[in-house]
């Protein structure tokens, strides 16, 4: 008998539609696998077996149909789902059950996607290793002693380990793409405004974007199409049709395209093994009929510092609402202490060290007298990076680079060095600052660990990622983790 957890989303949906299996069997197979391996991986913070089986039942009853009906999915715990605990990886929201569904969740439910549960993440999506989760780290399926990337390490580990064929991640500075890179999966940050942020617990409003995680480019495209599209509840949502991502993934032809290699996204900070796989990937693209050119984006050098002013500034304001008054944790409310003290104690105890570091950083950057030098200056850098992209896209249809500068590093290695951790996002941050779409997909192994190829496209040209990605994937299929740690 086929192992249902090994199927792609496309295969799963087809098998259910053809009545070779049922959505219930598929859901149960994945719930069983989670029960079997998640004790070692810790990809999930909450498994909603009841909800998953209920959706599966409705699909089997023919109540919901569609290209992803009955296909399981893991939801990053930063997106609210009505009645299901949402912690954002933080103690401060422990026990909170949202009274409403995010737009992404509404669309998944309407498509009959079976939501298995909520995945682990760095607290408030701040981190590149999932080690900043208040509930303990997630382990990389390729090597349990290594990080699965972050902040969406739970989603990428769940997909890589066959706990789920699909997952939703969110990407503020690389939180979909870097985990995809280090777990050998496909992850896409859509164009900012392409997928509604309504119900995505905000880290940095002008950068956050939800997107698909999958094991194949076509699976990612199908999920992309389900969650994307204009939402009147999100003012920054783009009122335009969803780019034809599924069609592009099926087309998978890049002959005649020009691909730009970004000069600045290489060299110092990039592991030799990563650079080598990347160079081979560029050769593969040439072999597939693309013309490769080198492009220069001189202001990318300032992307990391600009990001670490803009994102913490917005976060310091977005996270102010966690004050114990209306929901979540409340510490020290003994009838004696005043409101300010209870707020302070709650925030002191409820937020982890990395979150506090960024709140302090952002509060400082927005302070009277410092605004122009920090936040204002960072916004200028942002404009210059956008200009770099615009100029580069005048020379090339898409840009490529390594998605992460290193392969998965050992758990604990960078915990005491925040700057080293921040540098994991060197290659991914520019697209967030610009707003354009970007994908990471596997391009081989270095030292036995996955390396990710990043493809970047102009805003609202998300289909170009899928066209290039699918062509590359056909020439170089994703590696499969040995999973030799399984009992």
């Amino acid at each position, binding site marked *: 008998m086929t192992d249902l957890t090994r199927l792609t989303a496309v295969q799963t949906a087809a098998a259910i539609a053809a009545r070779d299996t049922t959505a219930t069997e598929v859901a149960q197979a994945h719930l069983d696998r989670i029960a079997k391996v998640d004790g070692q991986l810790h990809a999930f913070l909450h498994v909603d077996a009841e909800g998953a089986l209920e959706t599966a039942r409705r699909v089997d009853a023919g109540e919901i149909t569609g290209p992803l009906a009955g296909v399981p999915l893991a939801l990053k715990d930063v997106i609210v789902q009505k009645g299901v605990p949402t912690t954002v990886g933080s103690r401060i929201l422990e026990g909170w059950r949202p009274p*409403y569904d995010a737009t992404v969740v509404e669309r998944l439910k309407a498509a009959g996607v079976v939501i298995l549960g909520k995945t682990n993440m760095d607290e408030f999506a701040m981190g590149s290793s999932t080690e900043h989760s208040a509930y303990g780290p997630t382990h990389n399926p390729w090597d349990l002693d290594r990080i699965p990337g972050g902040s969406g390490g739970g989603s990428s580990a769940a997909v890589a380990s066959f706990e789920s064929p699909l997952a939703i991640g969110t990407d503020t500075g690389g939180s979909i793409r870097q985990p995809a890179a280090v777990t050998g999966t496909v992850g896409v940050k859509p164009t900012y405004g392409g997928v509604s942020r309504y119900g995505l617990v905000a880290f940095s409003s002008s950068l956050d974007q939800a997107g698909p995680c999958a094991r194949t480019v076509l699976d990612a495209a199908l999920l992309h199409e389900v969650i994307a599209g204009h939402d009147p509840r999100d003012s920054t949502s783009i009122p335009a049709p969803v780019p034809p991502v599924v069609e592009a993934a099926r087309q998978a032809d890049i002959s005649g395209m020009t691909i730009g290699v970004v000069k600045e996204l290489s060299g110092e900070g990039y592991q030799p093994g990563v650079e080598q796989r990347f160079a081979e990937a560029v050769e593969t693209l040439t072999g597939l009929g693309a013309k490769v050119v080198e492009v220069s984006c001189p202001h990318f050098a300032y992307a990391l510092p600009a990001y670490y002013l803009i994102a913490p500034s917005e976060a*310091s*304001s977005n996270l*102010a609402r966690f004050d114990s008054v209306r929901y979540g944790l409340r510490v020290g409310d003994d009838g004696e202490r005043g409101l300010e003290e209870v707020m302070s104690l709650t925030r002191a105890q409820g937020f982890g060290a990395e979150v506090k570091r960024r709140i302090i950083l952002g509060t400082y950057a927005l302070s*009277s007298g410092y605004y122009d030098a920090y936040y204002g200056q960072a916004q200028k850098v942002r404009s210059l990076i956008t200009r770099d992209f615009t100029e580069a896209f005048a020379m090339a249809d898409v840009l490529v680079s390594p998605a992460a500068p290193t392969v998965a590093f050992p758990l604990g290695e960078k915990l005491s060095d925040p700057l080293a951790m921040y540098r994991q996002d060197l290659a991914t941050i520019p697209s967030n600052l610009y707003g354009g779409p970007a994908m990471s997909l596997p391009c081989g192994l270095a030292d036995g660990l996955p390396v990710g190829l990043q493809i970047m496209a102009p805003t609202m040209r998300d289909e170009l990622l899928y066209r290039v990605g699918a062509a590359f994937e056909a020439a170089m299929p994703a590696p499969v983790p040995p999973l030799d740690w399984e009992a």
Partner: protein
Amino acid sequence: MTVPYVEALQEFEPVIGLETHVELGTASKMFCGCDTTFGAAPNTHTCPVCLGLPGALPVVNEAAIASTIRIGLALHCDIATWCRFARKNYFYPDMPKNFQTSQYDEPLCTDGYLDVEVDGETVRIPIERVHLEEDTGKSLHVGGSTGRIHGATHSLVDYNRAGIPLVEIVTKPVTGTKAKPAEVAKAYVTELRDVLRGLGVSDVRMEQGSLRCDVNVSLNKPGAEWGTRSETKNVNSLRSVERAVRSEVERQAARLRAGERIVQETRHFHEDTGLSTSGRSKEEATDYRYFPEPDLVPVAPDAAWVASLKAALPEAPSSRRRRLIEQLALSTLDAEAMTNAGVLDLVLATVDAGAPAAEARNWWLGHLAQSANSRGSEPSELPITPVQVARVVELVADGSLTAGLARQVVDGVLAGEGEPDDVVESRGLAVVSDEGALTTAVDEAIAANSDAADKIRAGKVQAVGALVGAVMKATRGQADASVVRRLLLERLGVRE
């Protein structure tokens, strides 16, 4: 210690400034679809957005933008072609997100003015800006004796008001008010209220908090630089605007005369005493860390849309007033008396509602002015509308009410008993026009006052007054005195 107002203003020059907050009367809130009706059960008009739940996002209410632009246009402001909302960050439990979505350095409307009349002179009040923001919720402090946070055991928060669109109208510093800063301040808020009411953008009820005022005052020696200002908050009636400026002038003058310095601070006005007390000092003020609201796209009002809003503005209250004064042929003296009493607009509105000018004038300068005075409020703050007054006038005109009954009906309306017709009904105040019923009362009066009756029969017709009074008393004022008089004379066989 204080220095009397008049004396203080002989010695110092005042500079005043006013910040007025107006709750817009839009059907839904600023950034979500929640109902804005006043007085609902706590926390029933809320949703994930106005409760600031994690993940919720704001969407701008276009009607609120339109109202703000209309206010700006009515105040002769420039309308921004592109502007952004900003976050004002500070922690307070009645603010669900712990930041207020407001506008900072890019307000929707800038640089306008409003002309007001004080004692027949026009004073131009320069407007700095008009911007749009969201209101906060309301805290209820429980367990203390005063209802204030001090001494309370716990607090409850009602978020129904959180997210209601709020327009802030800020004047530039107003100089040259000489001996009348308090009068100018009151005239400005009154005129502004009339403009807002004319636009129909708010119900401008100061007692319900839909119009709120902060008053800035500073004093300086003639020719010297402006003094340090104080900001008095919680000024919630027209009368209080005047009293707040007056008391602050008196307080600051005393300090300056004693060689003390004025502290830049926020003061709280107390309606009961007419005085203010010191609040937090600006020296320990919060750094609001304003930055552009990343959850909202910039607002870029289309020039054609702004032009259409401008074309559809109603006539300004001041010009309408001038026109009606002319039409009604009011004397300048009469118009001024009505302006000073704060009833001119009410009289005009009553005339608009169908009452003759003389009747409308008599009501507002007479019985209603007295009622307002005895309540310590302004005639405009009385719980009776010009339409209701016009209805009472109509009831008198068609003989349903006598003048005395009409006053009782008005008192009933003021006491919250409903519309004039409801009060007539519930108090049983209709004129007794049934002559049969009156005839009985007339006969009883004649029988009980035989001396007077005899005098009348003997030709002393003026003695009939006493009998009319007796009948009116017996019918509790519900009879028409002229009918009673006619019936009495008929019964006594006297012809005039």
